[in-house]
């Protein structure tokens, strides 16, 4: 015991509880999922002949379409959020002044309400004869087509739900750009646009990249928006995974889809982090 104490300092010793927790809560289930993805479809035992059959099945059935939908919606969400959030982040850092705290709080407030509650709230608001269309009808007599259960609303819902996850890292990134550096570029003859392109954008990149990754990873795993707001018009991959593990009782297929999703997302994240070495961007190395 004494020797054990000498070999492991206080750091490793104090890390033991969380290590055990992560081992049991994260590593073990992950390994189980990976293992299940190789066993024959619709079976529940790991002790049989392993094959890549489940992976082949993904591309032979329509599951790969869900994959493309999930990736496509996630990319669209990230792009829209980038365009929407950068000006807000810029404003929060440089323009709004003492109002910035209040505005930040307003953006953060929805996070305190459950995502499902907010999404069902949207349904009540947008549905035919709901808050919006019903009021318009009874007050002015218009009758408009409801946008509920469309792919557009799914995307809008995702943009809305993941906005804080883009906005806050971006705001941090923008606030890391020193004012004197911007002044220097301006003083050296750069136009406002050139200052933005040459100084603001590259120096705020670490925050922007983190925002991209965070929202992309979350959006690929989105489920409720397509289910509730989109009325299952498009099926995201997460929905297929859920079905495989529940109704279909086809754990191996669900596991294979999950592993593939993790691989795709993991590869993208690695590629982005390799392309944008965060430390180099901010000049720390």
């Amino acid at each position, binding site marked *: 015991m004494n020797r054990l104490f000498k070999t492991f300092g206080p750091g490793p010793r104090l890390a033991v509880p969380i290590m055990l927790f992560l081992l049991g809560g994260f590593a073990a289930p992950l390994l189980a999922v990976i293992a299940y993805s190789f066993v024959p479809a619709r079976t529940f035992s790991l002790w049989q002949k392993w094959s890549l059959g489940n992976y082949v099945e993904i591309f032979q059935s329509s599951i790969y379409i869900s994959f493309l939908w999930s990736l496509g919606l996630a990319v669209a969400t990230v792009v829209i959020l980038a365009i929407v959030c950068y000006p807000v982040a810029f404003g929060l850092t440089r323009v709004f002044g003492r109002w910035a705290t209040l505005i930040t709080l307003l953006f953060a407030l929805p996070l305190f309400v459950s995502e499902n509650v907010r999404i069902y709230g949207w349904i009540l608001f947008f549905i035919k004869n709901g808050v919006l269309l019903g009021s318009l009808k009874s007050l002015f007599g218009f009758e408009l087509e409801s946008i509920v259960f469309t792919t557009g609303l799914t995307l809008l819902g995702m943009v809305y739900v993941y906005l804080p996850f883009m906005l806050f890292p971006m705001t941090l990134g923008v606030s890391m750009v020193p004012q004197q550096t911007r*002044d220097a570029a301006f*003083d050296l*003859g*750069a136009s406002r646009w*050139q200052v933005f392109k040459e100084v603001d954008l590259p120096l705020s990149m670490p925050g922007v990249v983190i925002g991209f990754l965070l929202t992309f990873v979350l959006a690929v795993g989105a489920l409720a928006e397509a289910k509730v707001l989109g009325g299952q018009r498009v099926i995201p991959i997460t929905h297929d995974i859920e079905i495989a593990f529940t109704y279909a009782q086809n754990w191996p297929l669900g596991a294979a889809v999950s592993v593939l999703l993790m691989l795709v997302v993991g590869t993208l994240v690695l590629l982005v982090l390799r392309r944008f070495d965060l430390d180099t961007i901010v000049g720390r190395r």
Partner: protein
Amino acid sequence: MAGTPILQLRNLTKVFGNFTAVNDIDLDFEEGEFFTIVGPSGSGKTTLLRMLTGMEFASSGDILLRGQRINDLPANKRPTCMVFQSLALFPHRSVGQNIEFSLKMKGVDPAVRKARALELMLQLRLPETYYSKNVTKCSGGERQRVALARALAYEPDILFFDEPLSAIDYKLRKTLEKELKDIHRETGKTFIYITHSLEEAMVMSDRIGVMRAGKLVQVGSPQEIYSAPQTKFVSEFIGDVNVIAVTAIGAASLRAAEFATNLKCLPVPAGFTAGYLVVRPESLRFVGSPGETDNCLEGRLYNEYVLGSRVQYQVRVGDHVFIVEKLRQQAFGGHRDDKVLIGWDAEGSILVTD
């Protein structure tokens, strides 16, 4: 100095809310001079500089560049450039890219840009291999040179400096001060420098302007500022000085109530009733008897400080602390708590107002 003004300030004022940061300044900067604006923090020197560069706009008054009013011209349209306190180099760019920045903004051909950058690097004694080095990997002195090269590449009519040396250690600062003065000679451009250190200003400048609470209190050559300060503020700003509160009692005599004695001085200017007599530490001497100098006070040797080539002594007369300075070779042999006589001649003192 040829005496051709390049930049003229007329009643220049900047007000923030109900605070007047820069108050009614009139000043002509001459073509090719090294002018330093000195003042303690909060004296308005940075605000003044920001107005000159176009990063801040004047509340009233005019800025004339070669006779043209440039008040409303933004920084990126002015033919002037500033070296920032933080240097504000672009951390995501190489040394070469930093220097070429202004040329790139103008759309100059990359090959021409590079040639110009290398030329400036040679002039500023930066090794050619640094062209593609990341600026964040350069030392403090090297970054200083990159910042200067970047500003020179803009080909400005006037170069402004906002205390770029303040964050650098003493020894390197002394080297860079001289280097900057050499570069001023080589380029022949007008340099306008701000600092809170009069010592730094003295080394480099052709002329110095001292600022206090938004006003310009004295303008002159380093010699003039040093030997003929007009106010107690300017005299004290230079460093250790001995200041005695006095009232005029005759054509060349003063009353120093604190020491209950009369002092001789150079002819008192007309209109002077009360003020301060300033005696520099090097003008004070230890004397054997009261008659040796025009004025003499008896005190107690309290402490001594060795400053390399010079030695300073703290002498207390009552509660008043005097500083006496001698060259090392002429060090005073007294001991602590010895009774000593310190004296000075009328020519060694300066009469100033508050």
